[in-house]
């Protein structure tokens, strides 16, 4: 995917997520985040897809930036706007994320196959992982779950010959 498309997509998500903020603060936030991305990219000296993804990943999900911004706006409406890199986002470990990891690990032992699948649903609900990371986790689970099926097929084919 083109690097500029990734940035545009990220800023679009930020705009969509920032609807609870006042209009002028929304524009300010979009401009600050955009400037921050440009600064990080020129500092990196590259604009390839991996670099852009890394920069966006470091920024965190747009929803989280808006949530942190919304909190600071409510707590201190007269305070100066914070640059995006100064936004102190909450810990990425929420109930959904912990639940997802427990279902993938303990759930896999207590509820084989079903546990990890419910865990994957939690992973996809969470906003803390990017779509790419969610897809990688899904591929890992599906690929490793398919392995025993292939083994059983191989074993049954071996006995019937």
């Amino acid at each position: 995917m083109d690097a500029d498309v990734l940035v545009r997509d990220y800023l679009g998500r930020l705009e969509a997520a920032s609807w609870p903020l006042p209009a002028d603060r929304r524009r300010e936030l979009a401009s600050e985040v955009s400037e921050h991305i440009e600064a990080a990219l020129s500092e990196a000296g590259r604009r390839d897809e991996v670099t852009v993804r890394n920069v966006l990943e470091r920024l965190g999900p747009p929803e989280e930036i808006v949530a942190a911004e919304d909190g600071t706006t409510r707590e201190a409406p007269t305070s100066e706007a914070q640059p995006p890199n100064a936004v102190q986002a909450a810990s990425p470990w929420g109930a959904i994320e912990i639940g997802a990891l427990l279902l993938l690990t303990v759930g896999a032992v207590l509820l084989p196959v079903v546990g990890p699948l419910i865990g994957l649903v939690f992973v996809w609900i969470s906003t803390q992982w990017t779509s790419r990371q969610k897809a990688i986790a899904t591929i890992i689970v599906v690929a490793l779950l398919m392995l025993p099926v292939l083994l059983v097929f191989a074993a049954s084919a071996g006995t019937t010959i």
Partner: protein
Amino acid sequence: MTAGLLILIIPLAGIVAAIYLAIVLTRRSRDRQ
């Protein structure tokens, strides 16, 4: 033998994915500090 492998591999699928996702979140929270 096959049953033993199944018992090992089925939980392994979730555990490997969970380790990957935990590393992602840990790295992100460390980057923000």
